[in-house]
């Protein structure tokens, strides 16, 4: 495991999160502390162990494809920050 310093700005960019300079400093220190604690896992021998994603027996769950009522479009769109007609309105994504 690595104990190198986290590049908080880079990680925040990946997470699409704008941070203030103050947050970068504070979160950087706090995440560094936490990583020290989680680095304890390096002591565990896991070479012969499979990863667990979910504990309880579970296989692919399939169901019949049956048409049934879904959420009302108006109700859903009314909760959106911005709508236009039957759509969510977003800032321009593709350049002109």
């Amino acid at each position: 495991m690595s104990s190198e310093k986290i590049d908080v700005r880079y990680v925040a960019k990946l997470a699409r999160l704008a941070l203030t300079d103050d947050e970068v400093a504070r979160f950087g220190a706090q995440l560094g502390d936490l990583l020290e604690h989680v680095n304890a896992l390096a002591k565990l021998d896991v070479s012969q162990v499979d990863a667990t994603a979910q504990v309880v027996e579970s296989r692919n769950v399939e169901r019949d494809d049956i048409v049934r009522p879904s959420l009302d479009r108006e109700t859903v769109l009314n909760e959106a920050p911005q709508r236009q007609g039957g759509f969510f309105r977003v800032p321009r994504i593709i350049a002109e």
Partner: protein
Amino acid sequence: MEIIERSAAQIAREVNARTLSACDVTDAVLAHVEAVEGDVGSYVSVLHDQARAAAARVDERVKNGETLPLAGVPLAVKDNMCLVGTRTTAGSKILENWHAPYTATAVQRLLDAGCVPIGKANMDEFAMGSSCENSALGVTKNPYDLSRVPGGSSGGSAAAVAAFEAAIGMGSDTGGSIREPAAFCNLVGFKPTYGRISRYGLIAFASSLDQIGPLTRTVEDAALAYDAMAGKDPMDATSIDRAIEPTATTLRTDLTGVKIGIVKQFDTRELGDDIDHLYDKAYHDLQALGAELVDIELPTADYGLATYYLIAPAECSSNLARFDGVRYGMRVEGADVHEMYEKTRAAGFGPEVKRRILIGTYALSSGYYDAYYVRAQKARTLIARDFEAAFAQCDLIACPAASSPAFQFNAKSDPYSMYLMDYYTIPMSLAGLPALSVPCGWVTPAGGSSPMPMGLQLTAPLFKERELLSAAHAYENMTKHASAYRPSLERTPGGR
């Protein structure tokens, strides 16, 4: 006993017998909420109209000959669960004005069973926290000492039930968020086996861990709520398709023939003399009920916290990617779409949520994925195997639910000291096991003036909810710790 203090079981019995109406119960509870909410602050929203309408429907159904297992029972719904038409905030500014377009399956099942929704309960933002202090929507106080936290993340539900503002509180538990507030507020808090209760309509935090369960004043009420909520739901592919054995009808009053494991790694002497004596007494009481105590080991349990604080943030960073200012919640405009995402999330999320998104994103990022995330998933396997080996020697495991009673506001300013509150509850969550906290006595914290409750955590093998609730019931029935003290609330006559 005053109406508001009656158990869910008592209320349902009387409403079904028509010696009490659901409307009268609801009016009494709403009046009491009015009287104490200023002090306690359990609810983000109080649902006066919906509650009265639901109560009238319950009375109508009972009048038409139906018997409902939870007829007229006042319910607190944690604010990360959808109830159609109501504001559902998950304790976050980003969802402050969002209204749920549908109802969560677990909520619907309780309403169908006769529950009356009194309000949406406060919580740590997106269920991340152990004190409710991470809510962006307000402060919730511990009804047993208003200078102390109610626990978290289901702190509003816990405070509501402890302060008689509801008889059943719905909680969600990812690493201890039902069991720790239950311990802090003198309640029974029950997290069933992973997959037993549908999460459809629960706002996701860490999907491989999130579970819904009840907070109640008695074990019987927890059993009744579980019986109503459990079972396969086609809308949640992770809900388990297994027969549900009703638990409320099979509660025992002794523990003859039950082997209970005491965990060697969890040395309660480290928690101070008062707390050590309290758990010693609790284990002796289990023995007095007929249980045989055996020493067990959970060698990997100490790695639980490290494992959890990689897996849960990793899953949260993925789940919370959906809050991008497009489909629901708040939006902060930016020069382009990326700036809109970044500003929206910066303004909408609080510091704890940001910390977890960052740590999770880091643990999943290229170059660190194997070292952190995959290694944590492997540690998780070892922790689950520890429990399997332990359960070869015993039927249940007993240990503390939390390392201290409820602490004062702002006592845990360093994030890691708050994370440590989940030390005893996280291993069970990682293994998906059913576990609960039941009141086990009182201690007066250093510098505190009133005795505060503590919780005994009992854990069972996968799917053994019946045995777990049964044992908790036997313990509660003999010790009656919960009734030793009352919440310290000023109560006006109008609230009675």
